[in-house]
């Protein structure tokens, strides 16, 4: 298709490059440097979508990121992306775009019937209309509304694109590469400071590309090109196009999204978008200003556009937006649209200015109506004529509207700064309380002439250089063409029939705003929620000021009294994928593997995630089809002979210093000061509130050297706690901490043959006989010909057991060597399932019991709370509730009917009582099938448990609909006297 509306010459598009693209299935051509919007307009495509609520035909309204109407779906399949602004989509060969929000076809949308019901669809119509009958809401109304609501369609497939994030640093971040931004960046760059210049457009220059105004006797766009080249040549400057700075955060940190491959047919596996965190010393917001509309009846028809956008299409993209263009304006910039278009041969039908006195000369042939108002438009899918207040009708196929310009103050308000009203330009400008280090220059600061913008950019940069103690570079005096920019506020036309739209994206009309006010929504924040003014992708950038001006008029207040809504990040839409970055699927978090992981993998281990760790759950052998078979075998074999378990994941903390013993003694509730060198002791760490934080064994390797073990889950918490104690509570103690969790690979060797197995590895000069190395002994020995080893005779399983630690590099080999040495005993590796069974059989607590809500007394470890020393948690552990005699106690449970299976999480209720919260006596924390006892066994907390041994209660499990009778028993199911572990 020919580009019938492409102007014969001019523009910044690359006419040598013709790009074919599709819109709603039809093929079109555009040029390099086009946006989808400019290419569609060049091809005469005026209607590009349907409105949100009323499904009214809508066309391209603007030429920038503020676009409320032209939202399209791009790409196909899983890469389909809805709600893309056609004005921001850079054209590439093969681009496939589709209009959205209709049933049937774009031109003949069945849901356009909504427009007929518009009197019923006013602000807050959901709340008023769907009140009754009540049951209809969930079953009928909501599904129907949801089916009709929303703009684009998601692919419903996972996003196949790659996203990344990154970190940048600079002295000055310049946000926006229009005239003030370029001027500021040039000054800062020449002074040698580190500058990042970011702009959301793919072409540097901002309005310089959209206007015909010159700088330094060059075309504005040529000057922008030259400046870009100079900046790009500086090592200290980074120019980032296609990059939107979307948020201003604490301490001079900014969020930015860089669209790296959206302008290409394929990403080629590279990140599509990169989310940058930019650390700055100073930032200069040069974000420019956004033109706003005037509300008048039927002002939403395709062909009604912002005048600045019309000018941008003509000057930058060489596109005439109509065969005959009229202008409706309240300020001088509208007149520039007329003169620019006329100079390019586009006929101007009329200029309608709300002001009384003509400020400028009109192009030849254009009717001028001063004090005029547009009261309506006509045309089915595109404007064909407009009607003025006097009844005059003017034929035109494009109406360029300018209601003035609103500085883009958003970033200045991201930390709750409030903008201030400036009557001279009828707009809000940045207030005083801006984020740390932020300055504003140019149009974003309410300075509208090109000459002043250039000067303001430079002066702002010079001011910052001065704060840095640096001299500014020589002023090369940028000069620009003069321009007129006066305005007289005019918000909406009262005459005429038809709806006057304020917010095109949300179909909010003047009437809706007045109605909201009438119904009591006086605050602008309430107005927003009730009417949806200023919501969705454009966040009301063309609508907000207009909307609150109308609210102000309705309430008889001034605009400053009415105020604005709070601006929050992000400034423009940011894809969730970009926020997630690489954190998807398996990369959501890192994985920790023990040194023996590879050995376990090769030997049939099934792994379970335990925090970040991967732990072997069980080791399946040939013929085993259920985990219980593997687990039962591992338990039986360990208790019968010997089993080996990788326990590297336990936290290990090296504690050294002259006061190490005192430190450990204060951290644990039980005594450690007198622990002999070469011995281990089980200890409890309490929190300040007296509840148990963690448990573990600590070994004294030397007079001033301890190694503490923690549970896997609490390794970091305990280390952090110890550092807090060391640095904040007792800075006077000479003690140093370092984690050695990663340094040592550790394995438990448990079972009657554990010693025999170990003796085969231990170097001859070490004696580990029971006499020389009794229960709870520890020592630094060597194995396998000199490999340094830490050996602890401790037992979690209740068997004769050791934990052996070797440097992690040998961890994988250690598992193989232990199995090799244990072959004659039929040694088995065992996983955390078997570990769990054996510790329940022995009555040992783990995370299910140490859940942050239980005390040492609850756990039956009250005797471990020393009364002969001070320790963390001592005072608060004596609170009345924690020392009551009828408190919870950890005990064992067995089903009365041994064919029944216990369930963790069941709550205990006395027999014959109702299953209510009031009757709840405790809960089951851990359960297991005991292959040794051939019954299901469990641990749990129950009131006065230790004095109720033998009693039966109900383990109620209403969620799983299973309640069974259980007997309260000792938590030590196996070897209560501990003979085995001392063997």
């Amino acid at each position, binding site marked *: 298709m020919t580009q019938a509306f492409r102007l014969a010459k001019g523009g910044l598009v690359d006419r040598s490059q013709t790009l074919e693209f599709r819109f709603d299935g039809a093929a079109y051509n555009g040029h390099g440097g086009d946006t989808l919007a400019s290419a569609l307009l060049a091809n005469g495509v005026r209607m590009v979508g349907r409105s949100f609520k009323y499904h009214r035909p809508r066309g391209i309204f603007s030429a920038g990121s503020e676009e409320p109407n032209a939202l399209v779906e791009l790409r196909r399949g899983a890469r389909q992306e809805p709600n893309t602004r056609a004005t921001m989509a850079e054209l590439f060969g093969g681009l496939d775009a589709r209009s959205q929000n209709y049933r049937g076809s774009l031109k003949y949308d069945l849901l356009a019937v909504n427009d007929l019901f518009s009197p019923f669809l006013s602000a807050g119509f959901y709340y008023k209309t769907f009140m009754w009958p009540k049951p209809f809401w969930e079953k009928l109304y909501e599904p129907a509304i949801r089916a009709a609501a929303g703009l684009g369609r998601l692919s419903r497939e996972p996003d196949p694109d790659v996203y*990344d994030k990154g970190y940048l640093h600079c002295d000055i971040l310049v946000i926006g590469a229009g005239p003030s931004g370029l001027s500021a960046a040039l000054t800062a760059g020449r002074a040698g400071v580190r500058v990042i210049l970011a702009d959301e457009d793919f072409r540097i220059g901002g309005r310089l590309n959209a206007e015909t105004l010159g700088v330094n006797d060059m075309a504005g766009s040529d000057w922008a090109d030259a400046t870009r080249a100079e900046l790009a040549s500086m090592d200290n400057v980074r120019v980032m196009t296609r990059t939107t700075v979307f948020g201003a955060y604490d301490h001079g940190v900014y969020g930015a999204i860089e669209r790296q491959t959206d302008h290409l047919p394929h990403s080629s596996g590279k990140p599509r978008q990169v989310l940058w965190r930019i650390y700055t010393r100073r930032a200069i917001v040069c974000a420019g200003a956004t033109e706003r509309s005037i509300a008048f009846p039927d002002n939403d028809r395709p062909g009604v556009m912002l005048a600045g956008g019309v000018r941008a299409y003509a000057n930058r993209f060489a596109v005439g937006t109509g065969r005959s263009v009229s202008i409706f304006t309240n300020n001088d910039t509208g007149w520039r649209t007329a003169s620019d278009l006329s100079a390019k041969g586009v006929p101007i039908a009329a200029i309608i200015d709300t002001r009384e006195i003509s400020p400028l000369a009109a192009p030849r042939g254009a009717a001028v109506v001063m004090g005029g108002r547009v009261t309506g438009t006509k045309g089915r899918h595109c404007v064909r004529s407009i009607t003025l207040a006097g009844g005059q009708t003017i034929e035109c196929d494009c109406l360029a509207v300018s209601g003035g310009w609103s500085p883009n103050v958003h970033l200045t308000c991201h930390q709750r700064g409030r903008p201030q009203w400036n009557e001279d330009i009828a707009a809000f400008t940045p207030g005083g309380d801006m984020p740390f280090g932020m300055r504003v220059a140019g149009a974003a600061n309410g300075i509208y002439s090109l000459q002043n913008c250039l000067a303001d950019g430079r002066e702002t940069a010079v001011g910052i250089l001065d704060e840095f103690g640096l001299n500014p570079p020589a002023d090369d005096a940028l000069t620009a063409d003069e321009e007129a920019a006066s305005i007289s506020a005019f918000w909406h036309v009262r005459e005429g029939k038809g709806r006057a739209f304020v917010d095109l994206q949300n179909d909010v009309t003047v009437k809706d705003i007045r109605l909201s006010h009438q119904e009591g929504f006086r605050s602008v924040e309430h107005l927003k929620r009730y009417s949806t003014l200023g919501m969705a992708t454009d966040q009301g950038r063309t609508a907000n000021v207009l909307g609150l001006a109308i609210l102000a008029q309705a309430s008889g207040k001034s605009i400053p009294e009415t105020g604005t809504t709070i601006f929050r990040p992000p400034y423009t839409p940011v894809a969730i994928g970009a926020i997630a970055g690489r954190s998807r699927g398996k*990369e959501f978090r*890192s994985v920790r593997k023990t040194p023996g992981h590879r050995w376990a993998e090769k030997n049939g281990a099934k792994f379970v995630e335990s925090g970040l760790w991967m732990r072997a759950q069980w080791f399946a052998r040939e013929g085993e089809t259920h985990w219980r078979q593997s687990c039962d075998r591992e338990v039986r074999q360990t208790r019968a002979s010997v089993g080996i378990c990788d326990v590297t994941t336990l936290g290990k903390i090296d504690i*050294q210093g002259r006061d190490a013993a005192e430190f450990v003694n204060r951290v644990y509730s039980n005594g450690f000061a007198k622990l002999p060198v070469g011995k281990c002791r089980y200890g409890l760490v309490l929190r300040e509130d007296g509840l148990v934080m963690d448990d573990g064994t600590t070994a004294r390797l030397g007079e001033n050297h301890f190694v503490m073990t923690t549970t896997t889950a609490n390794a970091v918490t305990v280390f952090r706690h110890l550092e807090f104690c060391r640095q904040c509570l007792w800075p006077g103690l000479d003690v140093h901490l370092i*984690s050695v969790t*990663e340094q040592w690979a550790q394995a438990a060797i448990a079972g009657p043959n554990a010693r025999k197995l170990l003796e085969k590895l231990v170097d001859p000069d070490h004696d580990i006989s029971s006499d020389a190395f009794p229960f709870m002994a520890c020592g630094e020995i060597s194995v396998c010909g000199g490999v340094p080893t830490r050996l602890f005779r401790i037992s979690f399983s209740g068997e004769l057991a050791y934990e052996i630690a070797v440097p992690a*590099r040998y961890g994988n*080999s250690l598992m193989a060597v232990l199995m090799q040495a244990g072959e004659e005993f039929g040694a088995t590796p065992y996983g955390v399932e078997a570990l769990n069974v054996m510790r329940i059989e022995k009555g040992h607590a783990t995370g299910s019991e140490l859940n942050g809500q239980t005390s040492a007394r609850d756990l039956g470890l009250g005797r471990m709370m020393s009364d002969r020393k001070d320790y963390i948690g001592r005072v608060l552990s004596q609170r009345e509730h924690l020392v009551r005699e009828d408190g919870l106690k950890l005990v064992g449970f067995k089903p009365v009917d041994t064919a029944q299976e216990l369930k963790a999480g069941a709550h205990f209720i006395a027999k014959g009582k109702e299953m209510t919260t009031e009757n709840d006596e405790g809960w089951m924390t851990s359960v297991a099938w005991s292959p040794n006892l051939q019954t299901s066994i469990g641990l749990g907390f129950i009131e006065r448990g230790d004095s109720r041994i033998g009693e039966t209660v109900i383990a109620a499990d209403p969620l799983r609909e299973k309640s069974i009778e259980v007997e309260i028993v000792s938590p030590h199911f196996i070897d209560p006297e501990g003979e085995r572990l001392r063997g």
Partner: protein
Amino acid sequence: MAEFDLIAESPLNGLQRAFEGVTVEEVSGRAIVSVAFSDRAGLEQAVRTSLDLTLPFVGNTARVETRDLLILSLQSDQIFVLFPQTGHRPDLEIAEIAGDQGLVTDQSDGWALLRVSGPGSRTALERICMLDLHPDIFTVGAVARTVMEHLGVIIHRDGEQSFLLMSARSSAESFAHAVVTSVENVI
């Protein structure tokens, strides 16, 4: 010779990846010993005597070329010493130097070491490292503790275009993947 031999393995199995302008390689064979101290002056004296070296301040490093020894000053009361691993007890080798002024802990097996080098290394690290690695800010010889992809990392600039990264052994595969992905995303 013992009946059973333990075989040593490096955390990343000798990973080596070369890209255009960036190389990522595992550094192995280095002993790492932590030295904690309460009296900086005392340790300084000990180090001066045995190594003829001034103890660097936090964020800086020092080298003893003759012994291929690198000192990373990580916090006000702790340094790491890196040197070729020749024996089973590198901690005792450093204890000899520190005497009673330093508390040594062997960390040789706790860390995976990666060197990222080449002209594109800084650009690649921009994707995971939140520190400012500009050569005027993070100069050759600088060291810092930081976080990359939620993993604790020690980063040391050991050349104009070369960075030594240290991260925990257990998560080394995830860390290496993060580093390599960063390179792949920018080349």
